[in-house]
């Protein structure tokens, strides 16, 4: 069976007065059916831009320069705008990172869900209303009938995120893109939201692309991880490999920067910050922050290559050979 999503060679530029900002640079990754994939990286690494590019929602001054996005075997670039619109929300749904501001302030939240049933499934107002209430029940919103008539500003952050999830899952999408779904929520509420996502994903068979900078979240619910740095994919591997045998120096640094209480190891922050994506140099974009950088790294960009079972890395330096993996 084909992958649910194949992103190949995708490049997104934003034109600015100073030149092109290469926000996403020739990235490759896949998502299988029903899989939970974490897209990980610091702010500005191109994670959100990638998700908007998948939905073909990049607008001026942004532009998809090259590459293809195949969803369910169909190259999305070949679809008309109207065909694409029928995929958005129905086949590929998105949960945004700020639930409160992602809900329209002047439309009751229930209506924001029920209208999706009417739009994508052509249901009558009455049936759509019933399905909406079922959805609110599913995401465990107490007293759904009352909540449905309320507005975003009357609900708590966690409640808004549940509404967003209900909205995203309403039309049983095959792929759910969750962009930092737990940012700004209390830890305990965040954990419950993640549980809910995982549970509902499994129940509906939807694959989840979880965009986050939080490896703790990744460890909790992901099957596989795609690590992005400065608009490029540097490593992709099953979640166990990422934590137990990270190959790219950046991934190692990310894993090393997780604070741990179970062991007496100082957490090490990653030096420097994401380099400027405005006319970046040709080589590896991690070179200025990397301990292992060589002249080769500065000249040519390392290709994303397989390092064993389901494990791709874009680095000239072979950490596995040097250190035999990070003990964990």
């Amino acid at each position, binding site marked *: 069976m084909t992958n649910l999503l194949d992103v190949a060679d995708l490049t997104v530029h934003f034109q600015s007065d100073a030149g092109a900002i290469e926000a996403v640079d020739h990235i490759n990754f896949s998502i299988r059916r029903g899989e939970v994939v974490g897209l990980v990286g610091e702010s500005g690494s191109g994670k959100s831009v990638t998700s908007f590019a998948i*939905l073909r*929602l990049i607008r001026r001054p942004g532009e998809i320069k090259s590459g293809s996005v195949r969803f369910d075997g169909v190259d999305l670039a070949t679809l008309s705008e109207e065909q694409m*619109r*029928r*995929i*958005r*929300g*129905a086949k590929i*749904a*998105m949960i*945004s990172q*700020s639930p409160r*501001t*992602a*809900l*329209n*302030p*002047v*439309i009751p939240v229930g209506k924001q869900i029920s*209208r*999706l049933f009417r*739009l*994508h499934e052509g249901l009558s107002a009455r049936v759509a209303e019933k399905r909406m209430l079922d959805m609110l029940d599913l995401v465990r919103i107490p007293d759904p009938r009352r909540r449905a008539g*309320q*507005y975003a*500003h*009357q609900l708590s952050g966690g409640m808004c995120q549940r509404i*967003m999830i209900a*909205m995203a899952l309403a039309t049983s999408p095959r792929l759910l893109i969750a962009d930092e779904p737990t940012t700004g929520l209390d830890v305990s509420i965040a954990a419950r939201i993640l549980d809910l996502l995982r549970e509902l994903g499994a129940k509906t068979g939807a694959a989840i692309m979880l965009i986050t900078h939080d490896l703790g979240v990744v460890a909790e619910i992901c099957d596989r991880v795609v690590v992005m740095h400065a608009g490029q994919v540097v490593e992709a591997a099953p979640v166990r490999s990422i934590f137990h045998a990270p190959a790219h120096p950046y991934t190692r640094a990310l894993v090393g920067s997780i604070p741990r209480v179970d062991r007496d190891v100082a957490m090490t922050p990653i030096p420097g910050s994401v380099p400027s994506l405005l006319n970046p140099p040709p080589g590896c974009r991690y070179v200025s922050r990397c301990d292992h950088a060589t002249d080769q790294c500065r000249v040519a960009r390392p290709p994303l290559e397989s390092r064993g079972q389901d494990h791709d890395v874009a680095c000239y330096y072979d950490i596995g050979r040097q250190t035999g993996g990070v003990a964990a």
Partner: protein
Amino acid sequence: MAFLNYILRRLAFVLPTLFGVSLICFVLTYMLPGNPALVKAGPFATSEYLQEMEKQMGLDRPVHEQYFRYMSGLLRGDLGESASTGRPVTQDFLQRLPATLELTFASLLIAVIIGIPLGVLSAVHRDTIIDHVGRVVGITGVAMPSFWTGLLAIYVFFFLLDVAPAPLGRLGSGIAPPETITGLYVIDSLLTGNWQALRSSLYQLMLPAATLGFSVMAPVARMVRSTMLEILESDYIKAAWAAGLPRRTVIYGDALRNALIPVVTILGIVFGFLMAGNAVIESVFAWPGIGNYAVTALMTKDSGPIQSFVLFVAVMYVVVNLLVDIVYGLVDPRIRLR
């Protein structure tokens, strides 16, 4: 309940404002050079008669007594007398008010009907030819004084093209006004089924309303444009696109509904501007409203109507802004429900 509270709080602000307005009106008239008694008595009055007149008008009393007299008159609806018509100002006013209101509402309607879509189009097609044309049209409307556009419109549409009627009031010659219900000819002729009066009044209204509407369309369009631009970048609009909502729903439903909230505020300001702007346009089109009345009074230094006009416009402004606040609460659930 919260909303009732909100309205009551707004109301509480209105009373002191109205008091302030009346005070300013009084002080301005008091400080104005010229003797009102002299105007009333006429240029050939003897000094005894003048003194008698001053006494009769209370001008010999201390200022606080004069103010008290003025205020108690005001509260009884007594705005004094017009020296030129010899009738109570209140009576003159009520007779002319419907004409002004009709013109104002018609202009506002034109400004909204053209301004809002223009603003939306400019925002959606930002920095394209559509946006630029919208900007030029808007700036022209603001930059050209309305008496000038009015005269120009009369010259082109009446004199050259002959598609507009002569600028002589609210009805064509020989047409009887419809039965008075609201005093607005268009509404009254509609209500009474008087099609002849309806056609004539719409025809007469067309040019002055378009002129005034054109002058205030720009602020409406600019406001819609800037709020739309902001809202189109908001998270919930991005979410709406991502949810696969059709373009029309996203722009005219989700986005415009939010953009109209600040536009309500602008409409309040525009309304005030129209009330004042009426004075000039009514003169140009011989429109028998209160603006025309005030301009005539200004020419003859007839202080009663001038003072009343200023007071009236100010009061209307306050009342309209109160209504704006209430409408604001109705359209924005964040104010209505807390």
